[in-house]
């Protein structure tokens, strides 16, 4: 009898759950999404959220990105108060927006403005993927279009960092039309001699990759960033075949001629500064 009990016990030995194994103290530590190595969050911040072990580029918030690129205290934000409404009375949309506003401290999924990179002034827009997955609704489209217009009026270069799942569904066709709005703004800017750099970061897909993100004078990307028009799952369902693991990565896009260059985050500021220097008008 006693043996039976012991036997049973043996069979039911507890194994730590997969989830338990991966749990790291919230806030203090962070696990690399590329190699699973655990880092102090503070350490990771020092390397701009790039894993020192495998080089994986974790997302940066809009303001972390600005801090990583601009000369200290030179960034002036534009249109900070523009925010979404609920034109279609979409269920739960306003609640979701409120939640993300609280979480990110932003009013929308993009921050625009101007500042100095290595002493050179540029207009700038950066999307934040933690606000509604960086999706583009009316407010995002409006802020980007305004920033481009202002860059044109002030004869500034325009640099945009994309991080977006695409058009925001909750605003329906109004979101779709922001693709046109931003693209027309770029055309006007470009015709006036404007110089634009697009940097695609993880992820840049759908309506954002199919509008302003793909039509810079130069299109760059961060290593490993997911870049593409249609989602992997939809493509796999459509063509009924498994896609290679590197499909739609920045490196894949570079190989297929869709990008000018893939730039490591640690070299981003320097590369952008060089680009700005090379495009300064009249060698000023």
């Amino acid at each position, binding site marked *: 009898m006693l043996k039976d009990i012991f036997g049973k016990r043996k069979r039911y030995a507890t194994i730590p759950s997969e989830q338990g194994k991966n749990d790291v103290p919230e806030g203090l530590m962070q696990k690399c999404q590329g190699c699973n190595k655990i880092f102090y969050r503070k350490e990771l911040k020092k390397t701009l959220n790039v894993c020192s072990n495998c080089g994986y580029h974790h997302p940066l918030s809009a303001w972390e990105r600005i801090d990583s690129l601009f000369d200290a205290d030179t960034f002036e934000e534009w*249109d900070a*108060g*523009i*925010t*979404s*409404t609920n*034109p*279609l009375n*979409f269920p739960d949309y306003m609640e979701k927006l409120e939640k993300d506003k609280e979480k990110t401290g932003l*009013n929308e999924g993009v921050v625009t403005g101007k500042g100095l990179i290595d002493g050179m002034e540029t207009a700038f827009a950066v999307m934040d993927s933690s606000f509604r997955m960086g999706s583009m*609704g*009316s*407010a995002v489209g*409006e802020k980007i*279009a305004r920033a481009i217009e202002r860059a044109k009026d002030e004869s500034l270069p325009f640099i945009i960092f994309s991080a977006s799942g695409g*058009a925001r*569904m*909750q*605003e*329906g*066709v*109004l*979101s*779709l*039309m*922001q*693709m*046109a*709005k931003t*693209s*027309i*703004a*770029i*055309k*006007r800017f470009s*015709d006036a001699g404007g110089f634009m750099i697009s940097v695609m970061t993880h992820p840049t897909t*759908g*309506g954002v*990759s*199919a*509008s*302003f*993100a*793909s*039509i810079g004078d130069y299109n760059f990307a961060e290593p490993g960033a997911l*870049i*593409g*028009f*249609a*989602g992997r799952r939809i*493509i796999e369902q*459509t*063509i009924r*075949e498994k*896609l290679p693991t590197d*499909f*739609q990565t920045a490196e894949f896009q570079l190989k*297929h*001629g*869709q990008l000018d260059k893939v730039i490591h985050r640690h070299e981003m500021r320097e590369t952008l500064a060089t680009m700005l220097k090379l495009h300064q008008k009249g060698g000023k």
Partner: protein
Amino acid sequence: MKMKQVLDFEKPIVNLKEKISELKKITEDSDIDLTEEITTLEEKLKVLEDDIYGNLKPWQRVQMARHGERPTTLDYVERLFTEFIEFHGDRLFGDDAAIVTGIAFYKDEPVTIIGHQRGKDTKENIRRNFGMPHPEGYRKALRHMKQAEKFKRPIICFIDTKGAYPGKAAEERGQSEAIARNLLEMAGLKVPIVCIVIGEGGSGGALALGVGDHIHMLENSTYSVISPEGAAALLWKDASLAQQAAETMGITSYDLKKMDVIDEIIPEPRGGAHRNVDEQAKFIDSVLSKSLRTLAQYSEEELLEKRWEKYKKIGEYVTI
């Protein structure tokens, strides 16, 4: 006459029509006079048709827009234009049969015509990829838009696609860039552009032929950021809620008119465009000719400025 494919919500009409023709047959073939009953039923039919076709729900319009017999770009080309010549290829990769491009006369004026093209049967649909373009389709379209600009011809775009094709090769060849490039270039074309949504206006793949000075929609066409099925799957993890998504997303011509995204709703014959293609072409004709007359008055600068103003004001947001 070929039997039209009947949609679920049309069944009461079809049933009543069948009953009426039965009664008529009886009256003809026998001594029983049913004229009175027939008149009553015909009046009832009229009320029923008004009731059903006059109050189509968004999902019913989606079904109309997807109707297997719904006229395509080439059906209208044949009826609205003369001496049409189709051109092929993007000069970079290949020829995409999901988009047709060509030139023709429209009331004695040369125009460039560009449109998504679905097939009429399975074989043609496979050849035309169900009207879902690859990058080379958009690049072919752009090539001909540039020709139109060079030779100062207005451009008429027919929009009718579920969307740009979500395929491996399409991604490899730059589907995103091809669409984005068209948006950018259409913004600056110095000739009038009139876009008409004739069926489904599916997302970026539709918009890539859709940046213009006037945007019109056939009454039962749809224009949307994502298909109702896609929206339901993404938002509620359940594609079967497509009907609900269609109601919520505001995708009908009436919704888009209300949102100030389109210029005019082009009426359809009772029961949909496929019931009377000639009549539908006439309805398009009257709106199209008015559009082109209006746009012909503008200088190149005015045209581009107005195009920008048009898109600039689309969107709803607040400043806090």
